[in-house]
């Protein structure tokens, strides 16, 4: 990887982190638990890496298996995270 490509990635990291701090500090404490389970789902974005790893990188058997393990785990996070967050948010009602 070239230095200039790395710099672009660091730009993305810094700006996205800053945006994250701004947005999340506005989330009220009432919603902190759904925020965390929702974060679980979003951190399942590794699923993208797992898909690439279990296919494109599937050169040696070991790297393919590691990719598939990652794929199962990341899918659990994505599906489980979004479903449980929705289950919780559904209960938040104002009368």
């Amino acid at each position: 990887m070239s230095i200039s490509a790395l710099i672009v990635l660091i730009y993305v990291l810094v700006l996205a982190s800053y945006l994250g701090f701004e947005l999340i500090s506005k989330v009220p404490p009432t919603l902190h638990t759904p925020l965390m389970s929702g974060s679980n789902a979003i951190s399942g974005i590794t699923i993208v890496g797992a898909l690439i790893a279990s296919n494109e990188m599937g050169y040696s058997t070991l790297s393919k298996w590691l990719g598939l393990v990652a794929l199962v785990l990341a899918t659990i996070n994505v599906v489980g995270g979004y479903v449980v967050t929705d289950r919780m948010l559904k209960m938040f009602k104002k009368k």
Partner: protein
Amino acid sequence: MTIGIEIAYLIASVLFIIGIKYLGKTKDARKGNVISAVGMVIAIAATLFTLEVLTLLEIGIAILVGSAIGLYYAQKVAMTKIPEMVALFNGFGGLASFAVALSDYYFKRDTDLASLDAINLTSIIVSVLIGAVTFTGSMVAYLKLDGKVSGQPITFKGQHLLNLLLLIAFFAASVLVFLDPSQVNYIVILIVISLLLGILTVIPIGGADMPVVISLLNSYSGMAACATGFILSNNVLIVAGSLVGASGIILTQIMCKAMNRSLVNVLLGGFGQTVASGGEDGPAVVVKEIGVEETAMLFDSASSVIVVPGYGMAVAQAQHVIRELMEQCEKRNINFRFAIHPVAGRMPGHMNVLLAEANISYDKLIEMDDINEDFSNTDLVFVVGANDVVNPAARTNPQSPIFGMPILNADKARTVIVSKRSMGKGYAGVENELFGYPNCLMLFGDAKQTITKVVSEMKDMA
């Protein structure tokens, strides 16, 4: 990679950001979660599009298995067990990133050793470290929360020295990896050290500090995804990972502040141990008991009530009868509210979810800073399953380990009733001064049973 896929990733990143923005408002939060999920589907679809059709079967099976487990768990889990689920999922996220990093390492080693340049190796090493620490750390946190391992801090002599030595060994092995990237043995050493570090950093942390730990591990799982993004030069991984990383750090700070502890202090661990061996017992607290009928009468004659719920309420499954109590009080035009301490429950915001499940409107749940002024002109405070968060020792006793922690001013109310199974200490293992106060009355027994009786007494009065 085609421009189409990059644009799909960009759209996904924007949807994650919008999703989190909507999560900031209670009425829009559900929509936000859906928007974020749509982003995820777009990212997955775009990635699948780039893949060769060859291995679609294995990928399909892996996704089906993962979806089935995730769906089953998410629908079955009890709301009291959400902290365990989040801890477990933090660990899965860490392990997934770890596995992707290793997979990438093996692939490049076998196909194109030259592509393992300094930048790539650094990303892989960081990803292995964060991923493995998140994984084993989260597993320990899960076992502690679930009671499979004692919530007591586990400390031993030379613990911090051992961690330091492991960290030094990690750096040494990293240098060796840079010198000869083809040597798998060095990578294995890195893996073993990282896995150990995860365990060693969480075992000294006591059960009362778990809300801090799962928030921090939540952040790590995001950082792990971020590191994987650097390996694959993939922006959507970096954006999503940083959002989660930032979220976890903010929650960690909030939790630390609510317990008046520094993060370093929490991480060094051992909290709650020195307390038990404090020695100076002082005079035993003399408490006054109250029965069910008198409790019902006090509720009946009050004009304002504040309930202080703690995790003990959820353990006793008392939240539903508390809603009935609320209905009885509201029939009598009693101002009935809940005071929520930031560390009530076992993770940030846990109490709000538990009360929402019991069908209690969220505008009845008031945050500590917004309600603390009101206690002094409140007739009756009802403490259910909470302890340390109403202990006035936090204000008055500099010797107390919880001194300086912001608390709910329950003691300032005209009368305080504490529903408690028996005279035990709080989660932090500290004696509660409040119980000996002249305006404090103890309602002993299982919270669900006693409150059910109070409710039926009140129904008879009406």
